């Protein structure tokens, strides 16, 4: 059964976001496997450059209008829904982001489609999409299928590879500016003071314990690794008590309970009230010079060694793979 796939691209007005390339990769492969078509949709104002880049991958629909300058769901979703209905797309894919969750979900609601969020795996089976996605705060993974068309997917970029696509052209989407709602005013966006994600929502948490004697030590090791991994930083109670870290960083029974995909415990012994706050993390790594530290009992991987030697090395190697 052939599929007409639309990939909703995200951009920064100059170029496509890397995550969208992964979403495209999936869309392209689904369409090829189902012998269907694939197109990219770019929305915004003065998005010529982005459209041009996208057209290097696929036929690109361009909705270019001052009314689309700001990412207002009320407006964008309406245009996206119109594009879907006009072109009869049956599969719409975007990278999982605050934009796509906000906008694409609304578009799905407008057309009455079926949606799966945060997809981490996709298999085409007898013309059907078998989707894998996390449930219960990521403790389990489910295989599921959407039961009607059009199907909407937001996908985790890290789970899918980009694809080369084909060189194609662009076509203009007529934006009926007069019909667009005007109920939401945009007052700008401020980059956050702390770049670090919230402890309880971060995918990766890097935590430090008693091995760190000063705030500088903590920030230089735990903080630095957290930043390199775009992770949240956490701490044991001992450091909070000693005034080395603020109370908000405490992970544990009387602090925060976290269950990220990856919890890295550095120089942290794993006292029982700390374990209570992180033992359900999906993957736990510990680095501690005491081979019998209780943290190893709840860890999946560990190194028995000195954090002051190992963390700088870990930091360098993580940074190296990012460049």
């Amino acid at each position, binding site marked *: 059964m052939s599929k007409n796939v639309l990939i909703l691209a995200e951009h920064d007005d100059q170029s496509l976001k890397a995550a969208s390339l992964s979403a495209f990769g999936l869309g392209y492969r689904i369409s090829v496997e189902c012998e269907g078509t694939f197109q990219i949709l770019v929305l915004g104002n003065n998005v010529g450059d982005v459209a041009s880049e996208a057209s290097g991958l696929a036929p690109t629909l361009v909705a270019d209008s001052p009314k689309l300058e700001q990412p207002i769901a009320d407006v964008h979703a309406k245009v996206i829904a119109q594009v879907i209905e006009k072109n009869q797309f049956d599969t719409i894919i975007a990278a999982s982001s605050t934009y796509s969750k906000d906008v694409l979900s609304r578009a799905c609601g407008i057309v009455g489609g079926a949606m799966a969020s945060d997809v981490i795996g996709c298999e085409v089976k007898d013309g059907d999409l078998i989707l894998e996605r996390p449930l219960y705060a990521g403790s*389990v993974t489910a295989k599921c*299928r959407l039961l009607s068309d059009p199907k909407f997917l937001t996908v985790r970029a890290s789970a899918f590879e980009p694809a080369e696509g084909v060189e194609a052209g662009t076509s203009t989407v007529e934006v009926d500016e007069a019909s667009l709602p005007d109920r939401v005013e945009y007052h700008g966006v401020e980059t956050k003071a702390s770049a670090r994600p919230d402890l309880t929502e971060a995918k990766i948490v890097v935590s430090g314990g008693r091995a760190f004697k000063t705030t500088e030590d903590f920030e230089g090791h735990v903080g630095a690794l957290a930043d390199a991994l775009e992770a949240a930083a956490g701490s044991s109670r001992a450091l909070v008590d000693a005034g080395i870290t603020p109370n908000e960083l405490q992970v544990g029974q009387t602090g925060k309970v976290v269950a990220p995909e990856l919890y890295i415990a550095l120089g942290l012994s794993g006292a029982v009230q700390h374990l209570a706050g992180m033992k359900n993390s999906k993957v736990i790594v510990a680095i501690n010079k005491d081979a019998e530290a209780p943290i190893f009992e709840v860890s999946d991987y560990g190194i028995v060694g000195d954090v002051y030697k190992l963390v700088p090395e870990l930091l360098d190697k993580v940074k190296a793979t990012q460049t």
Partner: protein
Amino acid sequence: MKILVPTKRVPDTDQKIKVSSDGTGVQTNTLPFIINPFDAIALEEALRIQEGASDEVEVITVGIGNDEYEKELRAGLAMGADRAIHVSTDELLDPWNVSKVLKVIVEKEAPDLVLMGKQAVDDDSNQAGQFLAAQLDWPQATFISKIELADSKANVERETDLGIEKLSLNLPAVITADLRLNEPRYASLPNIMKAKKKPIDSIPLTDLGIEIEPKIEIISVEAPSSIRSCKKVETVDELLTLLRDEAKVL
């Protein structure tokens, strides 16, 4: 003013979650159930709006589920909600059908604001609020970390990938709450007492005249083994390789 707070009853995901024996779901019979944390945050915010308003604000919670749901609805009343609506059904509804039910309730109650959690921690879809807004053709603001109502508008701050986004939207609107919006209260003793007398209006789902159309089917559920045995390695290189290739978390 009327604020509607849809709430979902979910298992406490801070507990150990295990796959059911038939592999199609999770074992819930030994799990404690709670108000979805994001919905508790939404309810808390509604209560704060009520406390800070010069005019009267009515806070109504809505729950869709079986009879066991009364417990969590009563907890919402004990936090301070004025009344609760229980749409009773044994069926587990997906976000699309939840939004269809909520649409009927909204049309009945005509609230000025629907304030709900951004997602439920059992299915983590982050869709129901947006579906509802679309079906009502109301403006929406998702993942808010701040809200202030003034002159029939909601001024909000949203947590986005780019930073804190500021929006003003006309009411009525559908707004979904993110983690940093507030820290929900516990029920006070006087409010637990008062809650016993507050009404929970129970309506059978079948009375709403909605056609339930499932949009998603779960085929199977898997969880990683709960028995951890620590693989100790000697070098950073070995660790990174394992985290990348085996655990696939980096």
